[in-house]
Protein backbone atom coordinates (compact mmCIF):
# COMPACT_ATOMS: atom_id res chain seq x y z
CA UNK A 1 0.00 0.00 0.00
CA UNK A 2 1.25 3.44 -0.90
CA UNK A 3 4.68 2.35 -2.04
CA UNK A 4 7.75 4.43 -2.81
CA UNK A 5 7.89 5.18 -6.53
CA UNK A 6 11.61 4.41 -6.50
CA UNK A 7 10.70 0.72 -6.31
CA UNK A 8 9.70 1.16 -9.94
CA UNK A 9 13.37 1.20 -10.94
CA UNK A 10 13.45 -2.57 -10.31
CA UNK A 11 11.35 -3.01 -13.45
CA UNK A 12 13.19 -4.51 -16.41
CA UNK A 13 10.39 -4.10 -18.86
CA UNK A 14 9.38 -7.74 -19.40
CA UNK A 15 5.69 -6.87 -19.85
CA UNK A 16 4.29 -9.60 -17.61
CA UNK A 17 2.21 -6.93 -15.87
CA UNK A 18 0.62 -5.76 -19.09
CA UNK A 19 -0.03 -9.24 -20.39
CA UNK A 20 -1.70 -10.15 -17.05
CA UNK A 21 -3.81 -7.01 -16.96
CA UNK A 22 -7.54 -7.38 -17.62
CA UNK A 23 -7.89 -3.66 -18.30
CA UNK A 24 -5.02 -3.50 -20.81
CA UNK A 25 -6.63 -6.40 -22.64
CA UNK A 26 -9.90 -4.52 -22.90
CA UNK A 27 -8.82 -0.91 -23.22
CA UNK A 28 -5.64 -0.40 -25.28
CA UNK A 29 -4.91 3.06 -23.88
CA UNK A 30 -4.08 1.46 -20.53
CA UNK A 31 -0.68 -0.19 -20.16
CA UNK A 32 0.98 -0.77 -16.76
CA UNK A 33 4.44 -1.41 -18.25
CA UNK A 34 4.19 1.97 -19.94
CA UNK A 35 3.38 3.54 -16.54
CA UNK A 36 6.48 1.88 -15.07
CA UNK A 37 8.53 3.15 -17.99
CA UNK A 38 7.41 6.68 -17.21
CA UNK A 39 8.20 6.24 -13.52
CA UNK A 40 11.73 5.13 -14.42
CA UNK A 41 12.43 8.05 -16.72
CA UNK A 42 11.07 10.36 -14.03
CA UNK A 43 8.13 11.83 -15.91
CA UNK A 44 7.16 14.47 -13.41
CA UNK A 45 3.52 15.03 -14.19
CA UNK A 46 2.73 11.32 -14.57
CA UNK A 47 0.33 11.55 -11.65
CA UNK A 48 -1.83 13.91 -13.65
CA UNK A 49 -2.39 11.44 -16.49
CA UNK A 50 -5.93 10.14 -16.64
CA UNK A 51 -4.84 6.58 -17.34
CA UNK A 52 -3.80 6.02 -13.70
CA UNK A 53 -7.50 5.99 -12.83
CA UNK A 54 -8.28 3.13 -15.23
CA UNK A 55 -6.64 0.36 -13.18
CA UNK A 56 -9.17 -1.96 -11.55
CA UNK A 57 -6.90 -2.85 -8.63
CA UNK A 58 -7.03 -6.56 -9.35
CA UNK A 59 -3.35 -7.02 -8.34
CA UNK A 60 -2.56 -9.54 -11.07
CA UNK A 61 0.48 -7.49 -12.11
CA UNK A 62 1.78 -7.23 -8.57
CA UNK A 63 1.38 -10.97 -7.92
CA UNK A 64 3.22 -11.89 -11.10
CA UNK A 65 5.99 -9.33 -11.53
CA UNK A 66 9.25 -11.31 -11.58
CA UNK A 67 11.08 -8.32 -10.11
CA UNK A 68 8.74 -7.92 -7.15
CA UNK A 69 7.63 -4.47 -8.27
CA UNK A 70 4.45 -3.58 -6.34
CA UNK A 71 2.85 -2.38 -9.57
CA UNK A 72 -0.69 -1.82 -8.27
CA UNK A 73 0.57 -0.13 -5.12
CA UNK A 74 2.67 2.23 -7.25
CA UNK A 75 -0.47 3.15 -9.17
CA UNK A 76 -2.14 3.87 -5.82
CA UNK A 77 0.83 6.10 -4.95
CA UNK A 78 0.38 8.04 -8.19
CA UNK A 79 -3.30 8.50 -7.39
CA UNK A 80 -2.38 9.73 -3.92
CA UNK A 81 0.00 12.25 -5.50
CA UNK A 82 -2.74 13.44 -7.81
CA UNK A 83 -5.12 13.98 -4.88
CA UNK A 84 -2.42 15.69 -2.85
CA UNK A 85 -1.88 18.12 -5.73
CA UNK A 86 -5.56 18.98 -5.57
CA UNK A 87 -6.69 16.91 -8.52
CA UNK A 88 -9.31 14.64 -6.93
CA UNK A 89 -11.74 12.84 -9.26
CA UNK A 90 -15.39 13.54 -8.71
CA UNK A 91 -16.16 9.90 -7.80
CA UNK A 92 -13.61 10.05 -4.97
CA UNK A 93 -14.90 13.40 -3.73
CA UNK A 94 -18.40 12.00 -3.45
CA UNK A 95 -17.15 9.07 -1.39
CA UNK A 96 -15.13 11.39 0.84
CA UNK A 97 -18.18 13.54 1.48
CA UNK A 98 -20.24 10.54 2.35
CA UNK A 99 -17.64 9.07 4.71
CA UNK A 100 -17.15 12.44 6.34
CA UNK A 101 -20.88 12.77 6.98
CA UNK A 102 -21.79 9.22 7.94
CA UNK A 103 -18.64 7.11 8.19
CA UNK A 104 -19.86 5.07 5.24
CA UNK A 105 -19.87 5.25 1.46
CA UNK A 106 -23.53 4.20 1.34
CA UNK A 107 -25.33 5.99 4.14
CA UNK A 108 -28.41 4.15 5.36
CA UNK A 109 -31.65 6.10 5.36
CA UNK A 110 -35.03 5.29 6.87
CA UNK A 111 -36.05 3.53 3.66
CA UNK A 112 -33.06 1.17 3.91
CA UNK A 113 -33.81 0.55 7.58
CA UNK A 114 -37.38 -0.43 6.70
CA UNK A 115 -36.11 -2.85 4.10
CA UNK A 116 -33.68 -4.30 6.60
CA UNK A 117 -36.42 -4.72 9.13
CA UNK A 118 -38.57 -6.49 6.57
CA UNK A 119 -35.69 -8.85 5.82
CA UNK A 120 -35.37 -9.63 9.52
CA UNK A 121 -32.03 -7.83 9.78
CA UNK A 122 -31.05 -5.69 12.75
CA UNK A 123 -31.18 -1.93 12.68
CA UNK A 124 -27.80 -0.31 12.23
CA UNK A 125 -26.44 2.98 13.43
CA UNK A 126 -27.11 5.57 10.72
CA UNK A 127 -24.01 7.63 11.31
CA UNK A 128 -20.57 6.90 12.68
CA UNK A 129 -19.19 10.40 12.96
CA UNK A 130 -15.76 10.21 14.58
CA UNK A 131 -14.27 8.77 11.37
CA UNK A 132 -14.37 12.30 9.94
CA UNK A 133 -11.54 13.27 12.29
CA UNK A 134 -9.26 10.78 10.57
CA UNK A 135 -9.96 12.39 7.21
CA UNK A 136 -8.70 15.78 8.32
CA UNK A 137 -5.06 14.76 8.31
CA UNK A 138 -2.75 16.62 6.00
CA UNK A 139 -2.25 14.70 2.81
Amino acid at each position, binding site marked *: *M*GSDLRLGTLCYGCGVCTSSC*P*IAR*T*NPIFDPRQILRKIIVGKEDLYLENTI*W*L*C*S*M*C*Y*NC*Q*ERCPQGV*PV*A*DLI*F*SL*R*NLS*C*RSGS*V*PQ*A*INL*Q*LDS*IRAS*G*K*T*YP*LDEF*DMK*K*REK*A*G*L*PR*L*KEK*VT*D*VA*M*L*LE*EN*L
Partner: protein
Amino acid sequence: MRYALFLGCTIPARSRHYEMSALEVAKALSIELIYLENFSCCGFPLKSYSAEIAGSVAGRNLSIAEKERLNIVTLCSACNSMLNEERMRILHEKGYLEAINQRLGKLNQKIERPPEVIHFAKLLARGELLESLKQRVKRYLGGLPIAIHYGCHYLKPSSAFEDPEDPEDPSSLHTILTSIGARPLIYKGQKDCCGGAVLAFDEETASELAKAKLLNVKEAGAKAMVVICPFCSVMYDDGQKSIEKKYELQLGIPVLFLPQLIGLALGLDPKSLGLNLNTVKTKQLLEELLGS
Protein backbone atom coordinates in the same frame (compact mmCIF):
# COMPACT_ATOMS: atom_id res chain seq x y z
CA MET B 1 -17.26 -19.71 17.95
CA ARG B 2 -17.82 -15.93 18.11
CA TYR B 3 -16.83 -13.28 15.64
CA ALA B 4 -17.54 -9.61 15.05
CA LEU B 5 -19.39 -9.34 11.75
CA PHE B 6 -17.86 -6.64 9.57
CA LEU B 7 -20.43 -5.69 6.94
CA GLY B 8 -18.81 -2.67 5.32
CA CYS B 9 -20.90 -0.13 3.39
CA THR B 10 -22.30 -1.92 0.36
CA ILE B 11 -23.83 -5.03 1.90
CA PRO B 12 -26.27 -3.45 4.39
CA ALA B 13 -27.54 -1.11 1.69
CA ARG B 14 -27.43 -3.20 -1.47
CA SER B 15 -26.87 -6.86 -0.71
CA ARG B 16 -29.19 -7.70 2.14
CA HIS B 17 -29.60 -11.21 0.71
CA TYR B 18 -25.89 -11.80 1.31
CA GLU B 19 -26.20 -10.71 4.92
CA MET B 20 -29.40 -12.72 5.47
CA SER B 21 -27.99 -15.93 4.05
CA ALA B 22 -24.69 -15.56 5.90
CA LEU B 23 -26.58 -15.16 9.18
CA GLU B 24 -28.69 -18.24 8.45
CA VAL B 25 -25.71 -20.39 7.55
CA ALA B 26 -23.75 -19.15 10.57
CA LYS B 27 -26.69 -20.02 12.81
CA ALA B 28 -26.94 -23.51 11.36
CA LEU B 29 -23.24 -24.06 12.04
CA SER B 30 -23.34 -22.47 15.53
CA ILE B 31 -21.12 -19.54 14.58
CA GLU B 32 -22.13 -16.50 16.55
CA LEU B 33 -21.84 -13.29 14.50
CA ILE B 34 -21.91 -10.11 16.53
CA TYR B 35 -22.82 -6.65 15.23
CA LEU B 36 -20.58 -3.85 16.49
CA GLU B 37 -22.40 -0.59 15.83
CA ASN B 38 -19.33 1.61 15.54
CA PHE B 39 -17.72 -0.13 12.60
CA SER B 40 -17.43 2.27 9.66
CA CYS B 41 -16.30 2.03 6.04
CA CYS B 42 -13.33 -0.37 5.94
CA GLY B 43 -11.07 2.25 4.36
CA PHE B 44 -10.63 0.58 0.97
CA PRO B 45 -12.39 3.31 -1.06
CA LEU B 46 -9.93 5.83 0.42
CA LYS B 47 -6.82 4.02 -0.79
CA SER B 48 -6.74 6.01 -4.00
CA TYR B 49 -7.06 9.23 -2.03
CA SER B 50 -4.49 8.56 0.65
CA ALA B 51 -2.93 5.28 1.70
CA GLU B 52 -2.31 6.71 5.17
CA ILE B 53 -5.86 7.86 5.74
CA ALA B 54 -7.24 4.59 4.40
CA GLY B 55 -4.96 2.83 6.88
CA SER B 56 -6.19 4.96 9.79
CA VAL B 57 -9.80 4.17 8.97
CA ALA B 58 -9.01 0.45 8.77
CA GLY B 59 -7.05 0.68 12.01
CA ARG B 60 -9.98 2.32 13.76
CA ASN B 61 -12.15 -0.66 12.86
CA LEU B 62 -9.53 -3.13 14.08
CA SER B 63 -9.30 -1.30 17.40
CA ILE B 64 -13.08 -1.50 17.88
CA ALA B 65 -13.05 -5.28 17.52
CA GLU B 66 -9.93 -5.62 19.66
CA LYS B 67 -11.65 -3.75 22.47
CA GLU B 68 -14.44 -6.34 22.40
CA ARG B 69 -11.84 -9.12 22.23
CA LEU B 70 -13.35 -10.40 19.01
CA ASN B 71 -11.81 -11.51 15.77
CA ILE B 72 -13.48 -10.24 12.62
CA VAL B 73 -15.44 -12.02 9.90
CA THR B 74 -15.95 -10.11 6.65
CA LEU B 75 -18.40 -10.79 3.83
CA CYS B 76 -17.04 -8.25 1.36
CA SER B 77 -13.73 -9.08 -0.29
CA ALA B 78 -12.55 -5.46 -0.42
CA CYS B 79 -13.05 -5.15 3.36
CA ASN B 80 -11.25 -8.45 3.69
CA SER B 81 -8.11 -7.30 1.91
CA MET B 82 -8.11 -3.80 3.43
CA LEU B 83 -8.42 -4.95 7.05
CA ASN B 84 -5.94 -7.78 6.59
CA GLU B 85 -3.46 -5.48 4.88
CA GLU B 86 -3.68 -3.02 7.75
CA ARG B 87 -3.25 -5.82 10.26
CA MET B 88 -0.10 -7.05 8.50
CA ARG B 89 1.25 -3.53 8.41
CA ILE B 90 0.68 -3.12 12.14
CA LEU B 91 2.34 -6.45 12.86
CA HIS B 92 5.32 -6.16 10.55
CA GLU B 93 6.13 -2.59 9.56
CA LYS B 94 8.61 -0.97 11.89
CA GLY B 95 7.24 2.04 13.73
CA TYR B 96 3.78 1.72 12.20
CA LEU B 97 1.94 0.71 15.39
CA GLU B 98 3.12 3.89 17.12
CA ALA B 99 2.15 5.98 14.10
CA ILE B 100 -1.36 4.55 13.87
CA ASN B 101 -1.90 4.85 17.61
CA GLN B 102 -0.96 8.46 17.48
CA ARG B 103 -3.68 9.06 14.90
CA LEU B 104 -6.24 6.92 16.71
CA GLY B 105 -5.40 8.77 19.92
CA LYS B 106 -7.49 11.69 18.66
CA LEU B 107 -10.47 9.35 18.89
CA ASN B 108 -9.40 7.89 22.23
CA GLN B 109 -8.76 4.58 20.57
CA LYS B 110 -5.73 2.41 20.39
CA ILE B 111 -4.43 -0.90 19.13
CA GLU B 112 -2.31 -3.30 21.14
CA ARG B 113 -2.62 -6.46 19.18
CA PRO B 114 -4.81 -6.35 16.07
CA PRO B 115 -7.55 -8.99 15.88
CA GLU B 116 -7.56 -11.64 13.18
CA VAL B 117 -9.63 -10.95 10.09
CA ILE B 118 -11.09 -13.73 7.99
CA HIS B 119 -13.51 -13.84 5.09
CA PHE B 120 -16.62 -15.88 5.86
CA ALA B 121 -15.93 -18.22 2.92
CA LYS B 122 -12.39 -18.87 4.10
CA LEU B 123 -13.71 -19.63 7.58
CA LEU B 124 -16.16 -22.20 6.21
CA ALA B 125 -13.39 -23.89 4.23
CA ARG B 126 -11.43 -24.57 7.43
CA GLY B 127 -11.24 -28.17 8.60
CA GLU B 128 -13.67 -28.29 11.54
CA LEU B 129 -16.36 -26.15 9.96
CA LEU B 130 -16.12 -27.91 6.64
CA GLU B 131 -16.72 -31.22 8.40
CA SER B 132 -19.71 -29.87 10.27
CA LEU B 133 -21.02 -28.38 7.02
CA LYS B 134 -20.74 -31.73 5.25
CA GLN B 135 -22.58 -33.49 8.04
CA ARG B 136 -25.46 -31.05 7.90
CA VAL B 137 -26.17 -31.27 4.18
CA LYS B 138 -29.84 -32.17 3.83
CA ARG B 139 -30.66 -31.35 0.26
CA TYR B 140 -28.81 -33.06 -2.52
CA LEU B 141 -27.61 -30.60 -5.13
CA GLY B 142 -27.02 -33.43 -7.59
CA GLY B 143 -23.78 -32.14 -9.02
CA LEU B 144 -25.28 -28.80 -9.95
CA PRO B 145 -22.82 -27.16 -12.40
CA ILE B 146 -21.63 -23.88 -10.89
CA ALA B 147 -19.24 -21.21 -12.13
CA ILE B 148 -17.22 -19.98 -9.16
CA HIS B 149 -15.95 -16.42 -9.23
CA TYR B 150 -13.28 -15.88 -6.56
CA GLY B 151 -12.84 -12.24 -7.51
CA CYS B 152 -9.72 -10.29 -6.63
CA HIS B 153 -9.53 -9.16 -3.04
CA TYR B 154 -10.40 -12.45 -1.43
CA LEU B 155 -6.95 -13.58 -2.58
CA LYS B 156 -4.91 -10.53 -3.50
CA PRO B 157 -2.61 -8.87 -2.73
CA SER B 158 -1.32 -12.10 -1.21
CA SER B 159 1.05 -10.01 0.93
CA ALA B 160 -2.01 -8.84 2.90
CA PHE B 161 -2.64 -12.28 4.35
CA GLU B 162 -0.86 -14.25 7.01
CA ASP B 163 -1.95 -17.48 5.39
CA PRO B 164 -2.47 -16.59 1.73
CA GLU B 165 -4.16 -18.89 -0.73
CA ASP B 166 -2.37 -19.23 -4.08
CA PRO B 167 -4.09 -16.65 -6.30
CA GLU B 168 -3.02 -18.61 -9.39
CA ASP B 169 -4.70 -21.76 -8.17
CA PRO B 170 -7.26 -21.00 -5.49
CA SER B 171 -9.19 -23.92 -4.03
CA SER B 172 -11.21 -22.93 -0.94
CA LEU B 173 -14.48 -22.27 -2.77
CA HIS B 174 -14.07 -25.38 -4.87
CA THR B 175 -13.68 -27.39 -1.68
CA ILE B 176 -16.83 -25.92 -0.16
CA LEU B 177 -18.88 -26.45 -3.29
CA THR B 178 -17.88 -30.07 -3.75
CA SER B 179 -18.58 -30.69 -0.05
CA ILE B 180 -22.18 -29.61 -0.48
CA GLY B 181 -22.73 -31.62 -3.64
CA ALA B 182 -22.34 -28.97 -6.33
CA ARG B 183 -19.96 -29.30 -9.26
CA PRO B 184 -17.56 -26.40 -9.85
CA LEU B 185 -16.91 -25.93 -13.56
CA ILE B 186 -13.66 -25.07 -15.22
CA TYR B 187 -14.31 -22.13 -17.51
CA LYS B 188 -12.37 -19.70 -19.63
CA GLY B 189 -11.36 -16.51 -17.86
CA GLN B 190 -12.35 -17.78 -14.43
CA LYS B 191 -9.74 -15.65 -12.70
CA ASP B 192 -10.74 -12.46 -14.50
CA CYS B 193 -11.76 -9.43 -12.50
CA CYS B 194 -15.39 -8.21 -12.42
CA GLY B 195 -14.45 -4.66 -13.37
CA GLY B 196 -16.43 -3.15 -10.49
CA ALA B 197 -13.55 -0.97 -9.38
CA VAL B 198 -13.42 0.97 -12.66
CA LEU B 199 -17.17 1.37 -13.03
CA ALA B 200 -17.05 4.98 -11.85
CA PHE B 201 -14.13 5.88 -14.14
CA ASP B 202 -14.66 3.87 -17.30
CA GLU B 203 -18.08 2.30 -17.58
CA GLU B 204 -17.38 0.94 -21.04
CA THR B 205 -14.41 -1.17 -19.93
CA ALA B 206 -16.23 -2.32 -16.81
CA SER B 207 -19.18 -3.64 -18.80
CA GLU B 208 -16.88 -5.24 -21.38
CA LEU B 209 -15.23 -7.20 -18.57
CA ALA B 210 -18.52 -8.25 -17.03
CA LYS B 211 -19.93 -9.25 -20.41
CA ALA B 212 -16.91 -11.39 -21.28
CA LYS B 213 -17.19 -13.20 -17.97
CA LEU B 214 -20.92 -13.83 -18.24
CA LEU B 215 -20.53 -15.18 -21.77
CA ASN B 216 -17.81 -17.58 -20.65
CA VAL B 217 -19.96 -18.73 -17.75
CA LYS B 218 -22.88 -19.31 -20.08
CA GLU B 219 -20.78 -21.20 -22.58
CA ALA B 220 -19.47 -23.50 -19.85
CA GLY B 221 -23.06 -24.51 -19.13
CA ALA B 222 -23.30 -23.18 -15.58
CA LYS B 223 -26.71 -23.24 -13.91
CA ALA B 224 -25.59 -20.40 -11.68
CA MET B 225 -22.65 -18.31 -10.74
CA VAL B 226 -21.40 -18.11 -7.15
CA VAL B 227 -19.78 -14.93 -5.80
CA ILE B 228 -18.47 -13.82 -2.41
CA CYS B 229 -18.24 -10.05 -2.82
CA PRO B 230 -21.01 -7.45 -3.20
CA PHE B 231 -19.15 -5.61 -5.97
CA CYS B 232 -18.96 -8.72 -8.12
CA SER B 233 -22.66 -9.22 -7.54
CA VAL B 234 -23.40 -5.64 -8.59
CA MET B 235 -21.55 -6.25 -11.86
CA TYR B 236 -22.94 -9.70 -12.69
CA ASP B 237 -26.36 -9.74 -11.09
CA ASP B 238 -27.56 -6.12 -10.94
CA GLY B 239 -25.75 -5.30 -14.18
CA GLN B 240 -26.80 -8.37 -16.17
CA LYS B 241 -29.99 -6.90 -17.61
CA SER B 242 -28.26 -3.83 -18.99
CA ILE B 243 -25.47 -5.98 -20.42
CA GLU B 244 -28.06 -8.15 -22.17
CA LYS B 245 -29.61 -5.03 -23.62
CA LYS B 246 -26.40 -3.27 -24.57
CA TYR B 247 -24.86 -6.25 -26.37
CA GLU B 248 -28.13 -7.84 -27.50
CA LEU B 249 -27.56 -11.03 -25.58
CA GLN B 250 -29.69 -13.50 -23.70
CA LEU B 251 -27.93 -14.57 -20.55
CA GLY B 252 -30.33 -15.26 -17.67
CA ILE B 253 -27.61 -16.54 -15.34
CA PRO B 254 -28.61 -16.52 -11.66
CA VAL B 255 -25.85 -15.07 -9.50
CA LEU B 256 -25.88 -16.41 -5.95
CA PHE B 257 -23.88 -15.43 -2.93
CA LEU B 258 -22.05 -18.46 -1.58
CA PRO B 259 -24.10 -18.69 1.66
CA GLN B 260 -27.29 -18.73 -0.41
CA LEU B 261 -26.21 -21.91 -2.16
CA ILE B 262 -24.88 -23.43 1.05
CA GLY B 263 -28.17 -22.59 2.75
CA LEU B 264 -30.06 -24.47 0.05
CA ALA B 265 -27.88 -27.52 0.60
CA LEU B 266 -28.53 -27.25 4.32
CA GLY B 267 -32.24 -27.47 3.58
CA LEU B 268 -33.00 -23.90 4.68
CA ASP B 269 -35.99 -21.96 3.41
CA PRO B 270 -35.11 -20.07 0.17
CA LYS B 271 -36.90 -16.99 1.40
CA SER B 272 -34.86 -16.83 4.59
CA LEU B 273 -31.79 -16.91 2.33
CA GLY B 274 -33.08 -13.91 0.40
CA LEU B 275 -33.29 -15.87 -2.85
CA ASN B 276 -36.20 -13.69 -3.87
CA LEU B 277 -33.93 -10.63 -3.70
CA ASN B 278 -31.40 -11.56 -6.38
CA THR B 279 -31.86 -9.40 -9.47
CA VAL B 280 -31.72 -12.24 -11.99
CA LYS B 281 -34.61 -14.48 -10.99
CA THR B 282 -33.72 -17.68 -9.19
CA LYS B 283 -37.16 -19.22 -9.60
CA GLN B 284 -36.29 -21.71 -12.31
CA LEU B 285 -33.14 -22.82 -10.53
CA LEU B 286 -35.10 -23.35 -7.32
CA GLU B 287 -37.76 -25.35 -9.15
CA GLU B 288 -35.10 -27.63 -10.55
CA LEU B 289 -33.49 -28.06 -7.18
CA LEU B 290 -36.52 -28.30 -4.95
CA GLY B 291 -38.78 -29.91 -7.49
CA SER B 292 -41.67 -27.58 -6.72
